[in-house]
C-alpha cells in the first residue's frame, strides 16, 4: 500500500522523500526531507537519512471529490480529529471532534460524516465534505498506515484509545424495558402498602369488667 521514492531536489544536498499511502477512495502523500543534522549517536544513522523528519507538504486525495494540501499543523489537526472520532464510532457512539475554530471538524451527519476543513488563507470558505462509512474507513486506514510507518520521523498528536466512561456509554436499548417489570412490581407494592395504611383499623373493644355473677346460697 505504501510507496517510497527518493528524488534529488535541485540545489539541495538532502534528498527529497515521499511517502504514499493509498486505499480505494483515498490517497495520502507526504513530502519532506530527512533530518541530516540528527546526532550521529543515533542507532540507525544509515536509516536516519531515509526518515521523513521535516514535512514540507502533504496532499490528500479523496477520490475525485477533493484534493487537499496543507502543512504540518493541518496534518496534526486531521489526525487529532479523525482518530478519536473513529474510536467513538467503534463504540457506536459518534462524537463530534474539533471546535469551530480548528482547521478540521468531523461530526455525524445523516448516515454519513461531515468533514469540514478551514483554510488558513483569509476569505476562503470552509470546505464541506460528506463522507460515507467506507470513505471514512479508507481515510482512517491511510492515517493508520502513516502513523505506523517507521519511515515517518514526525511527531503527531496521538493518545492511546481509551475506554468510554460509564456515563459516556450509549444506553442499551433494552435496559429501560428490562427494569420496567421489577419497577412496576415495586410501585404496586408501595401503593398497596400506602392504601393499607389509610384504611382505618377496626377499633378494638376494651374488655369491660364483668359484673359479679349472682351468688346462689347453698342450703
Amino acid at each position, binding site marked *: 500500500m505504501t510507496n517510497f521514492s527518493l528524488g534529488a531536489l535541485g540545489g539541495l544536498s538532502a534528498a527529497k522523500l515521499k511517502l504514499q499511502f493509498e486505499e480505494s477512495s483515498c490517497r495520502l502523500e507526504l513530502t519532506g526531507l530527512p533530518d541530516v543534522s540528527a546526532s550521529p549517536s543515533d542507532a540507525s544513522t544509515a536509516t536516519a537519512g531515509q526518515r521523513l523528519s521535516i514535512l514540507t507538504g502533504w496532499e490528500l486525495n479523496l477520490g475525485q471529490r477533493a484534493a487537499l494540501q496543507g502543512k504540518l499543523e493541518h496534518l496534526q489537526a486531521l489526525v487529532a480529529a479523525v482518530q478519536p472520532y473513529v474510536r467513538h464510532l467503534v463504540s457506536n457512539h459518534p462524537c463530534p471532534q474539533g471546535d469551530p475554530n480548528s482547521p478540521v471538524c468531523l461530526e455525524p451527519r445523516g448516515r454519513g460524516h461531515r468533514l469540514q476543513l478551514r483554510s488558513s488563507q483569509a476569505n476562503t470558505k470552509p470546505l464541506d465534505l460528506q463522507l460515507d462509512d467506507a470513505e471514512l474507513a479508507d481515510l482512517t*486506514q491511510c492515517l493508520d498506515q502513516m502513523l*505506523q510507518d517507521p519511515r515517518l520521523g514526525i511527531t503527531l498528536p496521538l493518545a492511546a*484509545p481509551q475506554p468510554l466512561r460509564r456515563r459516556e456509554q450509549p444506553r442499551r436499548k433494552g435496559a429501560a424495558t428490562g427494569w420496567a417489570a421489577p419497577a412496576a412490581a415495586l410501585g404496586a407494592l408501595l401503593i398497596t402498602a400506602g392504601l393499607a395504611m389509610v384504611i382505618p383499623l377496626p377499633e378494638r373493644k376494651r374488655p369491660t369488667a364483668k359484673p359479679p355473677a349472682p351468688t346462689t346460697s347453698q342450703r
Partner: protein
Amino acid sequence: MTAALPCCHHRSHRPRPLTDSPAHPPSRPLPRRGLERLDLLLLAIEALDLHGSEAMLWSCEQLGLSEAFPDRVALWKSRCRNPLRRASRRGELSSQELQGLEMLVCNLAQRLYPMLRQLFSSSEPEQINRQRWELFNGRYRELILERMNDKRGAIRLLIDGSEAESLRRQVVQTLLFCAGPGGLQRLEASLMDGSR
C-alpha cells in the same frame, strides 16, 4: 456478497501499536458487555463469510495463537464465555484468550475489508447493496437463533426488535473500523467501555 473468502492482503503478524501504552492493562477483566460484543463480532464474521469458522482456525495458526486456541474446541470454549450463549460457560477469559480473540476479530476484519467496504459504500448500486444486507441479516439471524439464548433481552433486540437492523449494522460498522493497523487498539479500548 460472495461466500468465498475475498482475496486480499493478509497480515500474518500482530501490527505494531500506534501508541506505546496499551488501551487497558491485561490484568483488568473484560466487562460482561465487552464479552458479549466480542462474540457477536465473531458471529458477524461467520455470517459475512460462509467459511468463517475455518478462516478463524487458519488465522489462529497464522497469528501464532495455537497455544491459546490449539483446536476448534478450545476456540469454541472461549467463545462460550459469552453469557448470552445457549450453552454459556461460567468464568472469565484469560488475558491470553482475550488478546487472541481481539487479534482474531481484527485480522478477519482486515481480510473481509473489501466486502465490508462494499456494504457501507454509497457508490455501490443501491439494489445490490440491499440484497447484500438482506443476505447478511438472514445469515446473522439464523446464527443467533442457533447459538444464542433467545430469551435474553439483548438477543431479542437483535433478532426481532424495531432497532434490530440498526443494531446489526452497528456490529458490522465496528468490524469496518477495527480493520487496519490501528484497529486492534480501538477494539481493545471499545470492549473495555464502562470499566473506568
